[in-house]
């Protein structure tokens, strides 16, 4: 009995140990379950997809199949390589890997409609002088022998046809479905605006009060999603604008000026003027503190970084100038600008008066009311910017060069030529605005600080490895808007002695001026000696106002009056590369596998049938106890 019990306990112990071991092995196996996938696929990390955007009538962008598109990679470095892909190559479909310079419309039209191409990948060509260009993949080029390198792209877009269709489908889903599946989102964000003299935003300003609006855009776009460096098209302009705002705030008697100045930064201008059309709509519907009648004049800074021999061109609108009351006001505006440019390294020249305006936010205001205004640009007729709204519109495009061997802190202090040039433009703008607002003092003291420009431009480099991109996405408050908001508050606001609670909840303090100001709690700069920061409260007049197209407010998705741009939704965007085997190898593997299966079934059957012959032991015929 005792021996049996001991034996029983021992076997139970062994069983438990065995079970524990099995559990461990299975558990570890589960954790390592994906290692086979990692052995096959290499995911590509630093990629930018091309997504689908839709407007009232059409769709633009790219689409892939639901489960991705696969093709054998073929590098196209010159036009002759295309022949291999389109006609000669023996292993279609191909995934074309294109060098950046060849990514042109003519080439794309050649590839269009070919069933031998399953996708396209573009390698951005950095202007690299001596080393030449290389796609930089370790994957071998398409040779004549297997195994070949293949790439699979996943970018399945949910929206299709146009904004009207996708918004209708989204609203049907939201209304009737238990699990709504929205397919697209409107592009929207916020405009940033600030006034020189504080105004009460909860009510409207008086009908006799006049405001001069200064405007720039802060966004850009390119073929690829969220790649929009926009250095010349947007960044240089709003940096100049910020510098001019700072210069004006430093003048002593600005609070006594007869007219107010509103510094406005429009978001979404790339997509049919989302920000400016919304502001005009709000002004017409009386939802904005300032009305269209209060606008005295309008000054817009278009692209200003690439001035040819320091000339800045002044564009005006010929249609509104035909009005007798507008024409002299425009002349006054231009004269103020020309007067302010004396002494600065900026030559202002007017373009031909019959030439219409370049693409600008001012046109949205003119559609509502004739306002005297000018648009300043570095081009007379065609753009100086050769990379307008493309991924190559970077700092190199505006000739921002630092000397070799500077540390990041030194680059922060270094004043580039571009910064100096933008500062001069900002000086001219600030002086002209002072004159227009009725200022009578000496304007030569107003100077924009080029270091202000640098700090902005280098902040960009400091904000992580990549440059910040200026695409108006569908999530609200992109980095650019926040950046402009906080920098403007920093430059034009004053530090006040509030505690954190008072700063974050200004309505609790009995301060009669709190309606006019916005309070921001700033983290403060890091003391070089200590590791803690000294936070403070900034009082400024910087406000955010929604920049979403009125077409979506009015539910007129097919509107021709307002912007109707939307961005499609998607589940999964990724790319991966892997090796593919030849068809013959695949078939051989399959046949061998099936043969082994059949063989093993037969073997099992025969062994089972002849078991009493194969496994007979001598004399043991009794029943086995379990």
């Amino acid at each position, binding site marked *: 009995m005792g021996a049996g019990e001991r034996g029983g306990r021992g076997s139970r112990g062994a069983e438990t140990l065995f079970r524990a071991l099995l559990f461990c092995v299975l558990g570890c196996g589960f954790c390592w379950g994906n290692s086979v996938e990692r052995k096959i696929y290499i995911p590509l990390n630093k990629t930018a997809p091309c997504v689908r955007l839709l407007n009232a009538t059409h769709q633009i962008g790219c*689409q892939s199949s*639901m489960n991705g598109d696969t093709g054998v990679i073929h590098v196209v470095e010159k036009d002759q390589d295309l022949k291999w892909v389109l006609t000669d190559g023996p292993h279609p479909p191909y995934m074309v890997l294109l060098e950046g310079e060849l990514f042109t419309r003519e080439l794309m039209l050649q590839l269009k409609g070919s069933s031998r191409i399953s996708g396209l990948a573009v390698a951005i060509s950095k202007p690299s002088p001596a080393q030449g260009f290389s796609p930089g993949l370790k994957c071998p080029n398409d040779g004549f022998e297997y195994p070949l390198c293949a790439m699979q792209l996943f970018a*399945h*877009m*949910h*929206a*299709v*046809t146009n904004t009207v*269709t996708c918004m*209708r*489908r989204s609203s*049907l*889903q939201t209304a009737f479905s238990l699990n709504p*599946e929205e*397919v697209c989102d409107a592009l929207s964000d916020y405009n940033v605006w600030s006034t020189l003299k504080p105004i009460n935003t909860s009510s409207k300003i008086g009908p006799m009060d006049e405001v001069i609006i200064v405007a720039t855009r802060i966004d850009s776009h390119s073929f690829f999603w969220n790649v929009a460096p926009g250095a010349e098209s947007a960044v240089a302009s709003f940096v100049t604008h910020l510098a001019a705002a700072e210069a004006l705030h430093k003048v002593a008697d600005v609070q006594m000026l007869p007219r107010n100045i509103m510094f406005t930064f429009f978001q979404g201008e790339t997509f049919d003027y989302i920000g400016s059309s919304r502001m005009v709509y709000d002004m017409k519907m009386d939802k904005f503190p300032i009305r269209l009648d209060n606008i005295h004049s309008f000054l817009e800074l278009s692209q200003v970084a690439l001035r040819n021999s320091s000339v800045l061109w002044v564009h005006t609108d010929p249609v509104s100038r035909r009005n007798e009351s507008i024409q002299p006001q425009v002349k006054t505006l231009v004269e103020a600008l020309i007067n302010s440019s004396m002494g600065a390294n900026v030559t202002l020249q007017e373009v031909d008066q019959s030439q219409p305006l370049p693409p600008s936010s001012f046109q949205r205001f003119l559609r509502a009311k004739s306002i005297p205004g000018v648009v300043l640009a570095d081009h007379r007729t065609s753009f100086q910017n050769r990379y307008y709204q493309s991924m190559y519109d970077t700092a190199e495009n505006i000739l921002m060069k630092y000397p070799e061997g500077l540390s990041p802190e030194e680059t922060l202090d270094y004043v580039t030529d571009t910064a100096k040039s933008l500062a001069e433009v900002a000086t001219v703008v600030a002086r002209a605005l002072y004159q227009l607002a009725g200022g009578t003092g000496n304007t030569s003291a107003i100077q924009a600080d080029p270091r202000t420009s640098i700090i902005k431009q280098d902040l960009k480099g400091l904000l992580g490895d990549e440059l910040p991109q200026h695409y108006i996405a569908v999530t609200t408050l992109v980095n650019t808007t926040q950046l402009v908001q906080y920098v403007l508050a920093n430059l034009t606001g004053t530090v006040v002695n509030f505690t954190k609670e008072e700063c974050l909840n200004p309505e609790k303090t009995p301060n009669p001026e709190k309606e006019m100001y916005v309070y921001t709690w700033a983290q403060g700069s890091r003391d070089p000696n200590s590791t803690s920061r000294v936070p403070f409260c900034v009082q400024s007049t910087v406000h955010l106002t929604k920049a979403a197209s009125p077409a979506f407010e009015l539910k007129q998705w097919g509107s021709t009056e307002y912007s109707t741009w939307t961005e499609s939704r998607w589940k999964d965007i990724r790319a991966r590369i892997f090796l593919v085997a030849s068809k013959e190898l695949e078939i051989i593997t399959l046949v061998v596998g099936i043969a082994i299966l059949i063989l093993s079934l037969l073997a099992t059957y025969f062994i089972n049938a002849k078991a009493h012959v194969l496994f007979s032991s001598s004399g043991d015929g009794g029943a086995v106890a379990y």
Partner: protein
Amino acid sequence: MNLERVPNEEKLNLCRKYYLGGFALLPFLWLVNVLWFCREAFLAPAYTEQPQIKSYVQRSAVGLLFWVVVLTTWVTIFQTHRARWGELGDYLSFTIPLGIP
């Protein structure tokens, strides 16, 4: 249900009920009627209720054919033309495929 154990009046009753029920826009009842009573109506040795059962089965078959033709035509038209119908197509659909017109 095993029809061998059912008395003949019962069979006639069942057949009639299924036949009449199919008129309430329920073609599957007619389908069941045809498949279930097919052997009874045409292959079993004759008995008194058989001619009536036979007529019910035949009429159910006619109704079934009508429904098959109508539904097949509608499904074909819908699947091929839904994309072209735009707004009407979306309102008629329960699930709309993603990413294709």
